[in-house]
């Protein structure tokens, strides 16, 4: 659970200026610098930085104590923000605001419900709001829920387009077998057998198409991940093809293929052989 003060300083301070190599780094406050920022400013551990909350107040000095890789965060990938980490007293001194924080985390004893603890904290004092961590996670994931809804809507449109395409192709594919069907009828093959053969052919095509589609999707997913990981400098996964998704896609295409194949085959077996032969 976290409790948050009203808007304050937390946007911290990303005004840095490289000063010189540190001769007496031990006396200076240490800061940890994000890897991308260190790369952009060519910083190394031991370098000394001038720090400030604004370009006209660079009154602090710190030494790079560590360069760290931030945890991948989807909320940050499109932002250009760069981060440094400092000990709280060093930051408070730099900002001229001692004993102020944006938020603090509270660990509850086992068995205490976060909601009731947050409600109790909210009743006990004025000027802050307590939130269970789950509520913060839910609120901060709203953006991704919207993106997810958008993806689902696009997926529905894509499925409709694919379904129509599949129906059309299966219809054409079965109709291509008019002459074969006519010959089979002439030599005495039963309608049911012809229907079954055409249906089987439709199923085979749907399964083969699904297999090729799955391979294409895996390749496209890998390419998408490779591209966006490089593009956003992150280790996040952008395209995830789960067995469930593959199963759903294959089942859908198989069902559509069978329905289309059955409809076309039914039309074919109901037509007189002479008509199929083109002489009716």
């Amino acid at each position, binding site marked *: 659970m976290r409790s948050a*003060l*009203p*808007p*304050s*300083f*937390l*946007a911290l301070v*990303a*005004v840095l200026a490289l000063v010189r190599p540190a001769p007496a780094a031990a006396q200076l406050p240490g800061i940890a610098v994000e890897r991308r920022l260190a790369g952009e400013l060519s910083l190394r551990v031991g370098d000394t930085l001038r720090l400030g909350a*604004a*370009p*006209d107040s660079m009154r602090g000095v710190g030494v790079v104590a560590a360069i760290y890789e931030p945890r991948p965060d989807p909320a940050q990938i*499109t*932002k250009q923000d760069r981060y440094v980490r400092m000990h709280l007293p060093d930051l408070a001194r730099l900002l001229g605001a001692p004993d102020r924080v944006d938020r603090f985390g509270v660990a509850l004893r086992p068995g205490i419900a976060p909601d009731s603890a947050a409600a109790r904290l909210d009743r006990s*004092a*004025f*000027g*802050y709001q307590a939130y269970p961590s789950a509520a913060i996670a839910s609120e901060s994931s*709203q*953006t991704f829920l*919207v993106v997810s*809804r*958008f993806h689902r*809507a*696009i997926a529905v*449109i*894509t499925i*409709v*387009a694919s379904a*129509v*395409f599949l*129906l*059309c*192709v299966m*219809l*054409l594919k079965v*109709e*291509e077998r008019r002459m074969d069907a006519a010959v089979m009828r002439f030599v005495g093959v039963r309608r049911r057998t012809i229907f079954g053969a055409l249906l089987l052919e439709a199923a085979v095509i749907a399964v083969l198409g699904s297999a090729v589609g799955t391979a294409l999707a895996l390749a496209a997913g890998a390419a998408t991940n490779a591209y*966006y990981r490089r*593009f956003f400098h992150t280790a996040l996964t952008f395209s995830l093809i789960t067995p469930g998704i593959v199963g759903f896609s294959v089942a859908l295409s198989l069902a559509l293929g069978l329905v289309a194949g059955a409809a076309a085959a039914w039309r074919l077996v109901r037509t007189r052989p002479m008509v199929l032969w083109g002489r009716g």
Partner: protein
Amino acid sequence: MTGAAWAVKRLARQPLRTGLSLAGIAVAAAMLLDMVMLSGGIDRSFSDLLLGRGYQMRLTPKGTLPFDTEATIRGASAIVAALRREPALEAAGAVLGTSLYARRGDSLITLFAYGLQPEAQSLYQLQAGRDLASGAGAGVLLSEPAARLLGAGIGDTLTLVGRLDPQVVTAAAGRRLVVRGMVRWLYDYRGQPSVGMVLSDLQRLSSSPAEDRASMIVVKARQDSAVPGLVTALRRRFPSVEVSSVADLVATFHERLVYFRQLSYILGSMSLIVTVLLIATLLTIAVGERLGEIATLRAIGVSRRTVVGQVLAEGTALTIVGGGLGIGLGLATARYLDAILTSFPGLPAAFSFFVPRAGALAFAALVLLLTGSLAGLYPAWLAARTPIAATLRAEAT
């Protein structure tokens, strides 16, 4: 009979097949239309939003975008005064944005407050009542969500407090202001309870007035063409603040929403591929079925060119009719998709992702028509090289 009429007659002969093909092309065309609207709509909508009041430049704290952080510019009045002395500039005004609280009974209601200079405001449109006048204590403007939340209307008096101190459980500053008017804030998200007042009033409520803080300064140039030069000049003159033109801000926003632009390119290309595959498959099978007919036509003297023209005309007819159906479908789906994306938290309510632009739509229609027509090239080639004698002999047996 013309080639087009021939093609239409041919397509009508197979209603189920043609209907399915048209449905497929319509869905693909709808997707293409939506993606074209998405690809440029974001920039257009954002640019229109920023230029809504004609202010082409923004000055913000160094390294930030307008209202992107809680950082502020100190000594804003001096910068505004200097800007107003510039002959190339028509107007300049400071804006402060911060959280504020309205006292209602024993409880406090959290609001977002804009402090602005009424003579150079770029943030709202007055909907009812009177506008703010210059000078402290001039009153307060409410958005509709704020009025609803506070249960207040024009003429009512509000008690607004700021600088809450959780340790002593008091607000360090308070002020009673009369509601002068109802406004629509241009950059508010849906349901945002916002109030507006004169800058000096909000500065007193939110921080020490001596610091004279502002979140942003908006600047209007007399001539649009002078903006790039003015941006450069202002950057030199005010090195401690960030000077951005609307074009700069659009470029930054463009970068942040690059994912949607790339997605629109990928899905738009996929739509074109589906259209080409659908038309090419349909026409190839149709040509295969009509080889005897084509050979007969060739045998009685119909030229190869005419046969090719008929096949291409079929592809064009499918594309035109399917594309036409796709426009209606595309506009309907664009509204639905826009409703999803504009529910992004914190996005201005006036923002739109899918914006129809005549030029882009005409380009998309042309590309669709060309690709749809060209999809008939392979089946047309098959039709053109049909061996006449062999085909007729095979048909006769």
